């Protein structure tokens, strides 16, 4: 069996960083990354981007050495992706924040509102309902992160956690401040409006959860395979007939429901910003589905049926 030699150069300054000899032909990039870490322990595998061309795309961990367009001496270029943090850690932190922060405002912890309001309770039913919905939403997200989601990437750049937490925690505080304020004004159309909004919220939460379960079942544990999602027996998944990312559709729906329930402008703004971001993600996902699968259903739109 012929062995390969692998040299690893820095992509920017072309300095030779590492030379590996007697590498097996069926070694994967993941294994090469592990070998590289031995000589440069500060660059753990998650931080490494190895590529055939200094400006090219990163090679995947599953790529096999002998299947790459290289001779028996392979030259790989290395780029440091920076400090990495696991997706699970990021998700747990960014979701635990809003759960906790909202409750601080709900219980009217001192120094938020005037002292005479400390630890008082709102006299509006909708405020209590909103707290239940908001808390339920984030508990659901935390549980899904721990038990449902299967992540294709293990890590993301460290600075993302600051960016993401600022967004989630900031908006949570902003919304919670007004909803739990002593001068809060309940919805104009009263109980009718709240009931309708609650129905929308609950349906969308169930829908979102159904989609997450359906996506999880598409991918066996530990694998990174991608398949086209299809509707199942669960009626909530029938939205797959019309959109590529119904989980985002339901998510936007939930927040619209919450906005109608609380009649709070900051909630509406949060929904809008979230919708914008999710649309970008949905379009990206839709595009990669189209690229990867020739037989992708043509009727589907990225996030809003028939429209977007």
């Amino acid at each position: 069996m012929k062995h390969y030699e692998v040299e690893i150069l820095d992509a920017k300054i072309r300095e030779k960083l590492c030379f590996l000899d007697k590498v097996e032909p069926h070694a994967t990039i993941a294994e090469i990354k592990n070998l590289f870490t031995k000589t440069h322990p500060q660059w753990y595998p998650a931080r490494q981007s190895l590529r055939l061309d200094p400006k090219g795309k990163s090679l995947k961990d599953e790529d096999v050495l002998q299947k790459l367009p290289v001779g028996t001496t392979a030259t790989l270029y290395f780029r440091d992706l920076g400090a990495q943090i696991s997706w699970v850690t990021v998700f747990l932190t960014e979701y635990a924040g809003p759960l906790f922060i909202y409750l601080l405002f709900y219980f009217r912890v001192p120094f938020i509102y005037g002292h005479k309001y400390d630890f008082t309770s709102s006299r509006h039913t909708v405020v209590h309902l909103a707290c239940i919905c908001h808390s339920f939403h984030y508990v659901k997200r935390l549980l899904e992160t721990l038990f449902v989601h299967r992540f294709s990437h293990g890590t993301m750049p460290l600075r993302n956690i600051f960016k993401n937490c600022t967004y989630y925690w900031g908006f949570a505080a902003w919304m919670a401040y007004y909803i739990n304020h002593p001068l809060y004004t309940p919805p104009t159309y009263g109980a009718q409006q709240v009931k309708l909004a609650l129905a929308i919220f609950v349906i969308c939460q169930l829908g979102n959860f159904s989609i997450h379960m359906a996506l999880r079942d598409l991918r066996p544990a530990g694998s990174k395979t991608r398949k086209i999602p299809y509707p199942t027996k669960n009626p909530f998944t029938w939205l797959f007939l019309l959109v590529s990312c119904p989980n985002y559709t339901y998510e936007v729906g939930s927040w619209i429901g919450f906005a109608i329930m609380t009649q709070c402008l900051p909630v509406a703004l949060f929904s809008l910003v979230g919708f914008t971001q999710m649309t970008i993600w949905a379009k990206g996902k839709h595009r990669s589905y189209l690229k990867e699968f020739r037989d992708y259903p043509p009727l589907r739109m990225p996030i809003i049926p028939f429209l977007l």
Partner: protein
Amino acid sequence: LDINERDGGKGKLESRKFQKENRTHLPRLSSRGSLSKELYKILFFFRWLVLAIAMVRFYMEKGTHRGLYKSVQKTLKFFQTFALLEVRIVPTSVLVTGVQVSSRIFMVWLITHSIKPIQNEESVVLFLVAWTVTEITRYSFYTFSLLDHLPYFIKWARYNFFIILYPVGVAGELLTIYAALPYVKKTGMFSIRLPNKYNVSFDYYYFLLITMASYIPLFPQLYFHMLRQRRKVLHGEVIVEKDD
């Protein structure tokens, strides 16, 4: 964000990728497509020149800066609002140009226009002068580049004037906002109080304080970036940028 070249006094940016292609930082007629974009640049050059002349004339006639804002305001507002077009015309990231243009529009409409008592402040003259000189330099740079006859002086000016003009402009803007604060607090302008139907509130006074504070992280970044660009363009230094 692309690594961008920044101009003094919160001006606009050029995409670095664009520069790499041309190596002389000149916007090529064909690669940007329409002729009308180039015409707009020439127009903008003249509009800033018009503004500068109006300001100088005023000062010479009246011998004071009082009332200067009042006399130039129509022109300024007209052209500054037209600057919205720049977002699409200048070879730059839309997001970043958008931020610059909105900050100028913010100063003109939300501060100087809306808060009459501060229109006679010296600080207004400060940023007006800084903006005017910067823009004349920048647009004459574009114009001469288009004519393929760029005097070294213009290039030198573009990459050196900002060293003074940028801090001067920022100082003018900050002092103006600061001067406006008491009036804003007293009148409660542009503010929404609780309770209201949409359960939201906005305090323009605190908004202005936050705006002023935001200059602290933003200004040094932009300033040092311009300095790096200057070293690269005028002295041909090779600088390895930190990658995102």
